[in-house]
């Protein structure tokens, strides 16, 4: 009887998940299929889900039309470098906050971090535009990298301190009694145990600069322009022409998909390693 119940609930579970999956994947599929439709069919008064005729026009136009490679490269560099830096700097700070819990400085730092997260991006983007001009950093990738690192810090810290909180301190204390100093403890013991936290934080954090539009719009011109800004230029006041945009959007999403698939495996494997317990 129990086995039957389990099988039925298993089926219901599967069905529920599939329906949800379909709903969540639908818009992306819409774009995906649209990218293969002839340009006029992408936005039309008689829309269809699947292309009536398949074509690679949008891709060839998109790649021929814009300097896609450069924008893609700018996005990739600014996002990946800043994410790695943010993870490094952020987990250090998160560890400090977690282990200094109860001390005034830790609490205020945490509150401050939360505050950073609250700031509407537009409030920073506009002064940054003037600052970047006067500092001679306008339209330079280095500024994007620096800002995106700072941009991801609150998120990384907030996520990681939660993970560090759930790591028992006894192991670290034992190691220190054995003679390790703090940074050794951090790099050799704590970080490996937080690998899973790092992995999931990494994916979610990377997406922030990858998809950022507002900030890049203000501080880049033609050289350091990122792909989301370039995409927005396709939406002109003149035509409702989404066609090249769908092709570029699909292409732009591929690295994210690859990254997710790559890191997903480790989240699953690492979870059972026992470091992160309730």
């Amino acid at each position, binding site marked *: 009887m129990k086995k039957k119940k389990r099988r039925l609930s298993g089926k219901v579970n599967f069905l529920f998940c599939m329906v949800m999956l379909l709903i969540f994947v639908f818009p992306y599929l819409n774009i995906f299929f649209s990218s293969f439709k002839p*340009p*006029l069919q992408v*936005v*039309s*008064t*008689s829309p269809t889900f699947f292309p009536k005729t398949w074509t690679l026009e949008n891709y060839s136009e998109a790649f*021929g*039309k*814009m*300097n896609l490679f*450069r924008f893609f*490269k*700018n996005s*990739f*560099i600014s996002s*990946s*470098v800043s*994410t*790695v830096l943010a*993870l490094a700097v952020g987990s250090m700070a998160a560890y400090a906050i977690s282990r200094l819990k109860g001390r005034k400085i830790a609490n205020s730092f945490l509150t401050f971090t939360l505050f950073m997260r609250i700031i509407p991006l537009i409030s920073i983007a*506009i002064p940054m*535009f*003037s600052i970047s*001009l*006067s500092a001679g*950093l*306008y*339209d*330079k*990738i*280095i500024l994007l*990298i620096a800002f995106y690192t700072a941009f991801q810090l609150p998120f990384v810290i907030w996520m990681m301190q939660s993970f560090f909180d759930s790591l028992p301190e006894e192991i670290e204390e034992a190691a220190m009694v054995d003679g390790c100093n703090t940074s050794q403890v951090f790099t050799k013991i704590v*970080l*490996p*145990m937080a*690998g899973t936290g*790092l*992995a999931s934080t990494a994916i979610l954090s990377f997406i922030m600069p990858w998809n950022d539009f507002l900030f890049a*719009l*203000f501080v880049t*011109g*033609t*050289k*350091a322009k990122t792909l989301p800004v370039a995409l*927005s*230029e*396709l*939406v*002109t*006041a*003149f*035509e*409702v022409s989404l066609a090249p945009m769908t092709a570029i959007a699909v292409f732009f999403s591929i690295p994210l998909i690859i990254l997710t698939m*790559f890191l997903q495996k*480790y989240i699953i*494997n*690492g979870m059972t*390693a*026992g*470091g992160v317990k309730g």
Partner: protein
Amino acid sequence: MKMRKNNLWKRIISLSMAMLLGGTALTGCSGGGGDITPQTEVEATATQKQDDTKEGSTEAVVSAGGETISILVESGSNAELTMRAISEQFTADTGININIEAVPYSGIYDKLSAELVAKTGIYDVATIDIVWIPSLYPGLEPLDGLLPEADLNDYALSLLDGGIMEDTLYAIPAWANCKIMYYRTDLFNDAEEKENFKKEYGYELKVPETWQEFRDAAKFFTRDTNGDGNIDIYGTSFSAMIGADTTQSFLDFAAQAGSPAVMFDANNEIMVTNEAHKEALDFLISLKQDGSVPDGIFEMGAPENQKMFSEGKLAMVYVWAGMCPTIADPEKSQVADKFGVAHVAAGKGGYAATPAPWYNVVLQSSKNKDAAELLVKYLHEHNGEYARQKGIAARNSLLNDPELNKPNPQLAVMMDTLAQPQSVGRPKTEYWNEVRDALNVQIQSAIMGEIDSETALKNAALEIEKIIK
């Protein structure tokens, strides 16, 4: 257990290293990061110009020791296309290189206003919308002596006036634009349609010249053509979306109704509550109540309406003259071979439309003012290029060029409309965006039927007053 963790850790580290290395390596490549490769600035600009142009890689004519100036334009616009088309020739003629920076509409004003404060000289020339001139002019270079009197007369007075603030000319017109009527020739010329129309309305079907004729024709052509219970074609559509050209479209009608000025006049006297504005709003409401426009007009702006017309869903539509080339392009429109253009229908005051021109300006903070002014003059001399690229331009003399006019019937219609005395301009105010939005909200409410037109206009008047005073 430990082995697995080490493995995971190794992978994370190698991935991070790869990203960092890849990132720094790519940053080292020229053209992508901020590094300046050991080339002369001129050559670097030429390379970049080649990267930017969408055309094939022709040899860029580089003038050794020439300056480089930057022009800011709207991406995808007439300005961008024209600049890309002529920049090579300009460089060949003058030895000056051009860097074209194209940003979306919303970005132009922001970047210009920030630059006006920072004064770094990042842009020398810009092509801007008329509505920004009242707020930007303190940072623009006066261009009074740039063009000879005779040349200036080639522009309609109202066009020139748009670039004049405090009796000084700050902007030279690049192109003019306004709403014109597009209609389906296959519908209006059809014998059967004509017969049915005469039976129903008692007069000959023709391209509407008055508001009443427009309303009748719109109602007549709204129908379900394939019997499935849904309307397949509407008489017309108009813009009613927030953030689109809704307010300006409404003001067009107010001008047609004979209002001496739209919204408020040069002395900040509120006009929006006068008879003409009320008639205009009532007319729009009547079209909606007749059912001659789609229910979803509150999502529509000019591009959406143009798209609907191009797909055969509308019998007539008022959209920008500059959209004609798109509608006439068989690759982009299903009605390319069956439409005509005409000026908009006349209200009590005649036929009219508020101009929506764009201008070329020189920034005061420019470090190459002479070169910048040269470019503006060049664009004036080659004004026809704007028409060649997107079908609209500014100089009257272009009407005498048959080669230009034949494929661009909208040019003559537009210039004729703008020459009408009642085609008044939108108020010259630095608060345009705010008053535009305030009026937009009220127009929507009235057309939705939430409030009546008089209340809507009164509300709008109160808000506008608050803003401009």
